[in-house]
């Protein structure tokens, strides 16, 4: 795996191709995934993306068929919901804020938060970001447009900002004795808006879109969102992981870096920087599977954290 084919590195590159900055530079000039489409066909080169969109839109549809068609499968929204009248699901991030703000919720909310917590602890915290959260559709659209328009540069805040923001969200809940973040939280606001009506919340969603498009590449989901940070913390020991198990086949095309919403997580696994095994264990990885899709050499696959094998 230490084979780092220097022959394939184009001479005009000034930054190392495996750095995040190099990826960003290449990402704006290339159309990532072209090789993969040629090698695997369009459908297989978009398998995880299609599955992910189906998951995101399917979950949204479950919430929407109630108010639209009167089929009450799921009531409520992502903050708290009741499925088929029996299964409560509550956002543990909200319950944490509630408790910090001094309110001990009823058993339903605690049970619902426990179920959600257990799921993401087990399977992967940021699965929420990639497979459930509706804001992902917005920021993915912004990233796609940014790439197609060839918008370069921009200034994103440090990736750790979200963890600080997460801390301050809890502090402000304790200080105000209210769920202060919920006044501005674009994640819950967007989902609630789709189901219950938007008001001016379009402004906040549009703000995120244009922030990601014009100011900070992957700015919201990758650098700011405290909810994503919360779920990332949950996913530290989770089972479902991406593995670069055929990293010896990597031809440094950089397509995975270009599409990855958290490109810094790839290098340790793909290039063996600071670790031997090919698993992407960084909790910031959303397990979206785009790297699997766009790789023409089938370097990546989605597996478990126990599978450290390499082929």
């Amino acid at each position, binding site marked *: 795996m230490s084979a780092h084919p220097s022959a394939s590195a184009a001479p005009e590159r000034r930054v190392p191709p495996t750095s995040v900055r190099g990826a960003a530079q290449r990402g704006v000039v290339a159309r990532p995934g072209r090789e993969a489409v040629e090698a695997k066909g369009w459908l297989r080169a978009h398998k995880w993306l299609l599955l992910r969109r189906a998951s995101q839109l399917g979950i949204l549809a479950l919430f929407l068929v*109630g108010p639209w068609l009167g089929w*009450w499968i799921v*009531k*409520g*929204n992502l*903050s*708290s*919901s*009741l499925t088929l009248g029996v299964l*409560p699901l*509550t*956002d543990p991030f*909200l*319950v944490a804020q*509630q408790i910090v*703000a*001094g*309110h*001990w*919720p*009823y058993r*339903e*909310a605690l049970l619902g938060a426990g179920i959600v917590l257990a799921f993401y602890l087990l399977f992967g915290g940021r699965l929420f970001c990639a497979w459930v959260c509706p804001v992902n559709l917005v920021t993915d659209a912004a990233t796609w447009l940014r790439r197609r328009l060839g918008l370069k540069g921009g200034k994103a*805040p*440090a990736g*750790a*900002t*979200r963890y*600080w*923001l997460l*801390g*301050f*969200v809890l*502090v*402000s*809940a304790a*200080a*105000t*004795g*209210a*769920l*202060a*973040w*919920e*006044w*501005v939280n674009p994640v*819950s*606001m967007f989902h*609630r*808006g789709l*189901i*219950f*009506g*938007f*008001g*001016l*919340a379009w*402004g*906040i969603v549009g703000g995120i879109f244009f922030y990601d498009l014009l100011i900070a590449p992957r700015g919201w989901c990758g650098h*700011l969102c405290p909810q994503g940070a919360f779920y990332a913390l949950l996913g530290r020991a989770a089972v479902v992981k991406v593995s670069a198990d055929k990293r010896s086949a990597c031809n440094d095309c950089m397509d995975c870096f270009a599409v990855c919403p958290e490109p810094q997580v790839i290098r340790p696994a793909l290039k063996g920087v600071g670790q031997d095994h090919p698993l992407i264990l960084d909790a910031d990885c959303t397990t979206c599977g785009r790297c699997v899709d766009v790789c023409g050499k089938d370097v990546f696959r989605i597996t478990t954290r126990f599978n450290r094998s390499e082929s």
Partner: protein
Amino acid sequence: MTMNDKVQPTGRAASAPSPRRRFLKDAAGVAGGAGLLALGAGMYAKQASALPAAAIRPPGALPEDDFLAACVRCGLCVRDCPYKTLKLAELGDSVATGTPYFAARAIPCEMCEDIPCVVACPTGALDRSLTDIGQAKMGLAVLIDQENCLNFLGLRCDVCYRVCPVIDKAITLERIHNPRSDRHAMLLPTVHSEYCTGCGKCEKACVLPGESAIKVLPIKLAQGSKAEHYLRGWEEKEAAGRSLIGDQVELPVRGLEDKAYGDTRVKPGEGPQAPEYKPAQLGSGGLDSGWKP
């Protein structure tokens, strides 16, 4: 920072800051930015948390401060309200975004006996210790416009009284003399806070074309604070079974010696007379007290 530059203890080149210092600097910047953002959100939240008067919380809602810590804005109460009374505030509604409320003039609370909205709430923002909807205190009805209320004009509208689910307790009609005509009664709708649940059916039913003359307001707006230092003598007397200040010395009033103490009502010609006094003579226009409101 500049002070630290001079006391760099290690032999490291001055141009390359140590990793620790770089970390501290980065962390300070990031933390500052995130802190400002969160502070902004918190202050906005504080400022936006004043509930407008026309927005009434569902039955069983905790006091507003606690409610804003407890409500996760999931809308399950909205979904289980059979009359579509409740709705979630949208951004720009001037009610905390995403929290449930209703506007009584649009759709009032129908006071379901099983209180499905309270049962649906998973967090306790709507308190399940409320099991009798008659005990709900969503707000308090106030007959706020006495100039346009038809009953105050001397008519028999009575609609707010008729639709009240707690009729004759929460709203009564108090009969008083109509000083304008001087020969009719006025039946004034009068709200009693002990029984009013704040459901808003009176506000919805008021026949005035636009705004209602009777409105449900948050209790904090509708009610004054009780003057605790003022003991109501009649209540104390009833509770104690006797006057708390003992029997009073009764001084006779000249001319009324044979009447009960305190009774100063006199017939014409009875009691002490002013020497020049003559009762007013009625004109041809009938009774006219001359009183104008």
